[in-house]
């Protein structure tokens, strides 16, 4: 069996509370926006690799909300130090999910450096995350999700995925003032 990214995201949807912030990046973002559009989706991460850092800023500034980060493996490799920063920042409300398909999917599907060998969950463990695991089956992800989201963060879950449906890549929206304004209004409303 393999785990399709959109199936994994569909499994996550019932566990997302109304007040949760979801930070999503690149193809995970496009999939998530198609599957579960909501005003507390934070899509304006600006530069590749920054989703985890935005998630940390939101988690620090909004301690009463859970912050769910839907990261990409190529993105995280650009900001590996953020694992250490997050683990040492004392946030317990950050839940970091990594779609690991081992390629730069939106940039031509070239392989990541170390594509066959990198162990992302081990990196999160070494960085000091409170919990970490790697999951490659939908059944296992569905079973693990309640426990992951009930545990104190930061929690890290590497999802060894393949692409699912080809959801449209709406770059104009994720970089739009409209997306930022709707998030701000929902956060402070």
């Amino acid at each position, binding site marked *: 069996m393999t785990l399709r990214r959109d199936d994994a995201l569909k499994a996550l949807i019932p566990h997302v509370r109304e007040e949760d912030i979801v930070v999503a990046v690149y193809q995970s973002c496009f999939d998530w926006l198609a599957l579960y559009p909501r005003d507390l989706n934070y899509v*304006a991460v*600006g*530069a590749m690799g920054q989703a985890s850092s935005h998630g940390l800023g*939101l988690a*620090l*500034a909004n301690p009463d909300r859970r912050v769910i980060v839907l990261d990409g493996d190529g993105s995280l490799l650009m900001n590996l130090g953020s694992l250490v*920063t997050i683990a040492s920042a004392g946030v317990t409300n950050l839940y970091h999910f990594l779609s690991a398909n081992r390629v730069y999917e939106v940039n031509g599907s070239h392989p990541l450096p170390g594509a066959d060998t990198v162990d992302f969950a081990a990196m999160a463990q070494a960085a000091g995350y409170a919990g970490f695991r790697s999951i490659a089956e939908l059944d296992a992800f569905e079973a693990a999700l309640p426990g992951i989201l009930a545990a104190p963060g930061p929690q890290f879950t590497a999802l060894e995925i393949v692409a699912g449906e080809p959801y449209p890549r709406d770059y104009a929206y994720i970089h739009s003032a409209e997306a930022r304004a709707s998030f701000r209004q929902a*956060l*402070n409303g």
Partner: protein
Amino acid sequence: MVAGAVAAADMPKVAHPSGAKIIAGIKAAGAREIVALPDIVTSDGLLWPVSRDPDFRLTRICKEDEGVSICGAMSYNGTRAVLMMQQTGLMDSLNVIRAIGVDYELPVVMMVGLQGKEPHLHPDQSSAYGVRIIRPVLDAMELTHSLIEAPGDEVHIPQMIEAAYAASRPHIFLIGRSPEAA
């Protein structure tokens, strides 16, 4: 005009800004979140005192561009923050500043130590290439900046932070001389 290299012992004596007044200015602007990488210019007079000040929450980061995103994300609910770093980290973070600060119009306030700047010289006249290009680079990016290097410069900090948050734009304080702790 660019200065030639001068031995430290031969440099004219100049007065330095007050770290305590910089900290007071940050507090007066309502910022309680400090996000930082150590910088030798501001280490003793600013970052160590901040690290011991219970009024602040200090988040230590591994790379400066993390801090731009952290501060930008914090601003969505009005949380005010100051990012401290050295000018080398500023240069390393330009793309994220471009995206988060300029394209997304978020109020990221930075305090940047000018490592290698001669205390008696204006940054534009420094013999250090990495120092004298900083202000022109910021100007090219249409980023506002102000220089803190003499006693009295600290007084502008609250109003500049207020202005950055009011306009929802970045502002960069360039620290040209090591602040005295007092």
